[in-house]
């Protein structure tokens, strides 16, 4: 699965469910699905792997969140033990409910981290940059320059360090970093000058600029959109639910519409367009189904099982098999990856036999 937008759909579905549910059963199911997809991409993913192991990270987050909440939140009926004394924040009852609540928060945080890690693993940085909307093309260029120049900067830093070490430079205090950082900064600025000249020479930004008149209406729409967002947010917080949500949606529509319109005025050439294959459509459809099942009031689905609270007395979380089954749709990118690997292995075996 190579289509960035299909991956974005998958990610959105996971993030929305993770923010809605606090039911540990669903959370574990989602986390397992994400980890399965991550593991299936371990060998074939073209993105950047996280420097720390995901399993270790998940373990740390869950343990820390459980411990922190157990020590700082003293609510709940099932008292495990009491920390004596008058230690601020910590002294008091340590309850099972607080531990479960902390672990649940840890699961949510791990799920979010893991899903973004999988996205980083699945997509190369150039595909992530290609997701930047057309209206932001100068920022997309800045981001590409930064991402491209970053390894050079790190290499340059290493070279400066070695050159200074040859001259007998030693790192004893903060001030000793000056001979390393200043050449890096000045060298970078010189490089920026050369790069700007090269870009001008190649005709960058030589197209006709967008007229101010062409920008007035969409920008006015965006300004109105911001006002509607703020008003909608206040209405939403104040309990005027529906009209608040309508205002927020209208504001978001005006902002996104304005950006889309302005983006259309900037020509963009795509040298290598990622094609939509049936695997991408399947993953996107599965993500859409999961989202609909969890958020829309569909008959026959017990969506109340998504909401779970361990306070004040711990109870077993309820589980709806239909919701659980729908959530398994999040496994599809991983299954597609396994299918692709198997196909490639079979082709390779076939070729070997022919030879």
């Amino acid at each position, binding site marked *: 699965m190579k289509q960035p937008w299909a991956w974005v759909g998958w990610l959105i579905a996971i993030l929305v469910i993770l923010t809605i549910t606090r039911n540990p059963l669903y959370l574990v199911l989602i986390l397992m699905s994400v980890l399965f997809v991550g593991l299936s991409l371990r060998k074939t993913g073209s993105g950047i792997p996280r420097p720390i192991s995901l399993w270790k990270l998940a373990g740390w987050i869950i343990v820390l969140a459980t411990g922190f909440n157990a020590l*700082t939140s003293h609510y709940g009926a099932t008292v495990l033990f009491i920390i004596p004394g008058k230690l601020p924040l910590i002294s008091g009852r340590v309850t099972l409910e607080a531990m479960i*609540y902390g672990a649940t928060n840890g699961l949510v945080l791990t799920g979010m981290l893991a899903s*973004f890690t999988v996205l980083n693993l699945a997509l190369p940085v150039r595909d992530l940059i290609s997701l930047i909307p057309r209206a932001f093309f100068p920022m997309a260029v800045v981001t590409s320059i930064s991402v491209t120049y*970053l390894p050079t900067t790190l290499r340059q830093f290493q070279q400066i360090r070695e050159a200074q070490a040859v001259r007998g430079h030693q790192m004893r205090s903060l001030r000793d970093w000056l001979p390393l950082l200043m050449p890096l900064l000045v060298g970078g600025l010189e490089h920026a000058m050369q790069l*700007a000249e090269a870009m001008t020479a190649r005709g960058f930004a030589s197209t006709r600029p967008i007229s101010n008149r062409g920008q007035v209406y969409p920008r006015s729409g*965006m300004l109105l959109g911001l006002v509607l*967002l703020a008003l909608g*947010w206040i209405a939403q917080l104040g*309990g005027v639910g529906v009209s608040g949500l309508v205002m927020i949606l209208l*504001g978001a529509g005006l902002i996104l519409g304005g950006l889309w319109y302005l983006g259309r005025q900037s020509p963009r050439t795509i040298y290598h367009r990622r094609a939509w294959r049936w695997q991408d459509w399947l993953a996107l459809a599965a993500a859409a189904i999961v989202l609909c099942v969890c958020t829309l009031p569909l008959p026959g689905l017990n969506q109340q099982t998504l909401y779970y609270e361990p306070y004040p007395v711990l109870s077993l979380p309820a589980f709806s098999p239909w919701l659980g089954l729908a959530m398994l749709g999040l496994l599809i990118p991983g299954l597609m990856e396994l299918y692709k690997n198997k196909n490639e292995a079979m082709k390779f075996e076939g070729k070997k036999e022919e030879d």
Partner: protein
Amino acid sequence: MKSRLFSLAIYISASLSGMLVLLYPFFLPAVPQQAGFGSLRLQQMPMMMTLLLGLCLLVLIFEAQGPMVNTKLIALLGILVAINSALRFIETAIPGPGGFTPIFFLIILVGYIFGGRVGFLMGALTLLVSALVTGGVGPWLPAQMFTAGWVGMSTPLLHPMVRAFTGRQNKQRSRNVNTEILFLAVFGLLWGFLYGAIMNLWQWPFIIGPQNQSYTTGLSLLATLQRYLAYYLVTSMVWDAIAAIGNVLLILTFGAPALRALRRFHQRFEFEYSPDPGAVGKPHGGGLSG
């Protein structure tokens, strides 16, 4: 002039809307608990906040990049963001103590020399690029980009203060640089704490903790502030103090030479060639401005 006023209105609206999203626990003190979150459930709030902040951020970035079809500025920002992201990359590999991070040093200095617009983009894009290359993209990213952008955007506010102070002082250049560095260091100290305090707001209303530190709807502004302060003192003060002291040390140690280098390049980057309409057809018919 009209265009600048319009642009200012968009900057102010986007920043205010972003602040409304983050600071809502303080300005809604009298909302009854049951109706407090409208049709939203408590669990849906972080996602809604991320979406709204993301939209405000999009508008701010669009407005800041507006007239930036300038190769020099694009190249400059690209390289400076790369240098800053490299510093964050090194910091991720060799973690410093507590909340120490070297990224705000360049954001503050670039905002001070190149103006609030470039400062905002520098802050927001540093966080974006470093998140892309370290695999740190997450729902917290819009809030981080927004706040780091504010750091860079607010730096030019120091100019009148520095001018007012150095105006009464000896006109010696070295003295002026020292004053600037001192102002920038104090600014770095303040933002060290503020950045942590603003980022905490993203999660504080949803954390269940001791009663005197956790958020409850229906409290007065003062009581909410007291609770937040107690939470901040217990959970974040030491972490942010290390970040703030780190900012101060970096600015005091490297600020003066870095400012000199950035000023030199600012003059070079401002150099522009524009054809002189009156001199078309004549030899040497161009104008230089810098």
